[in-house]
């Protein structure tokens, strides 16, 4: 099994989620994060004092999938999160050793 972590633009979340759903992904987790990267942040000004905010709001999607599904999932994310603008984000693939469903105790692929 693989864990796919994708950092994407917030307004792409629904598209990505629906895309993953369509290829058979049955669950995923979403976190609001602040990203730092090539995409520049913005300036804020409070009573004449200027602050550079380096961080950009991003969404992190975490989804654990059967290794067979991984490349398709990556492809789907790539397509659905794509705008072509800087800051579209990254996808990271990490190894997962085991998965357990709390409710049933199932393990492995059937726990997904």
């Amino acid at each position: 099994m693989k864990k796919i972590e994708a950092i994407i633009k917030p307004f792409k979340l629904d598209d990505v989620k629906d895309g993953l759903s369509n290829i058979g992904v049955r669950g995923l987790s979403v976190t609001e994060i602040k990203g730092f990267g090539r995409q520049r942040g913005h300036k804020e000004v409070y009573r004449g004092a200027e602050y550079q905010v380096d961080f950009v709001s991003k969404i992190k999607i975490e989804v654990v999938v059967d290794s067979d599904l991984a490349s398709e999932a990556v492809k789907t994310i790539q397509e659905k999160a794509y705008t072509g603008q800087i800051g579209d984000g990254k996808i990271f693939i990490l190894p997962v050793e085991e998965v357990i469903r709390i409710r049933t105790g199932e393990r492995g692929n059937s726990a997904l």
Partner: protein
Amino acid sequence: MNTGDTAFVLMSAALVMLMTPGLALFYGGMTRSKNVLGTIMQSFIILGIISIEWVLWGYSMAFGPDHGGVIGGLDWLGLDSVGMEPNADYCGTIPHLAFMIFQCMFAVITPALITGAFAERMKFSAFLLFTILWATLVYNPLCHWVWAVGGWIRGLGALDFAGGTVVHISSGVSALAAAIILGKRLGYGSTAYIPHNLPMTITGAALLWFGWFGFNAGSALACNGLAASAFTVTHIASAAAALSWIILEWIHRGKPTTLGAASGAVAGLVAITPGSGFVGPLSAIIIGAMAGLICYGGVLVKSRLGYDDSLDVVGVHGLGGTWGALATGLFASKAINPAGADGLFFGNAAQLWVQFVSVIVTMAFAFIMTFIILKILDIVIGVRITEEEEVRGMDVSLHNESGYSF
């Protein structure tokens, strides 16, 4: 001069002033958090800009000596000869300045109401220009027609105690024009524009309700039985509309919502405004209850018609104001206000016709003028922010600020 009347009108002016920040919260809570400041800013800065406009030329255009029933003269520019003494035409028992500043608060909130229609997507510079032009070319004349001595709609005998046509229909109809010209927000139809802070919206609604006592009862311009009556029916209509809105949505959607209660309360306040000095308490219950139902319907219809009136100015103020103006023609009674007129249900069908005429004229005038002003502004400087600005949100894009940083 009467100190009690003056105290009442000045305090009413303070209450009405508070309505504009109240509106800022009411609207601000309904937007997405990236637009909260941009939305609040529009109302807040109108307090600045229109107050100055009103003092410099607005009051004179609206209430200055009449020219042909159409507009006030420029005799009172910069409040020239508007002083501490009563003015026999408008306020026999309170200082002329008290009347002026009370009316100032009405001139302020009216364009602020419109901002709900183009929330989350208008350029700040275009917005400022629009506001000044709209006040000058729409509000001031309309105010003169309806309320000034010599104004031609007043001359027809139309009843508008506290601003059904001048404030609510004019802003509601202008909102429609603005929504059409500005176009839909990015992602319309697919994005969920979920209110980011409903407690803020409800706080705003509460301040509106509170301030509306000044708006309607203060319009008696004296503190007498009529003021108490206007105060009472204002409260009752709002209460009735809050209830009828949530009952209808309970039936229609399965659950009553808090936003519905707040929206209903505002709808009721809008609807009772023109008749608040002319109708009795039981009429107020009916006017309010109907307002809740009508405005709920108006809000629903929006999505059918396909314009993006973001915060439902048309459905609440346009429709609510229209219902209120017509309802005044139905429920007005000389038993409540001998200086008024009887409505249809009290035997005078003619009044309903007069009300109808005043509504149609206001609608046509406000819609056409707003459309023209915005069209020209759009051609000359553009009225809409860029896509990227819209995605980032007004707060960061237009004001270099963020609403929250918990």
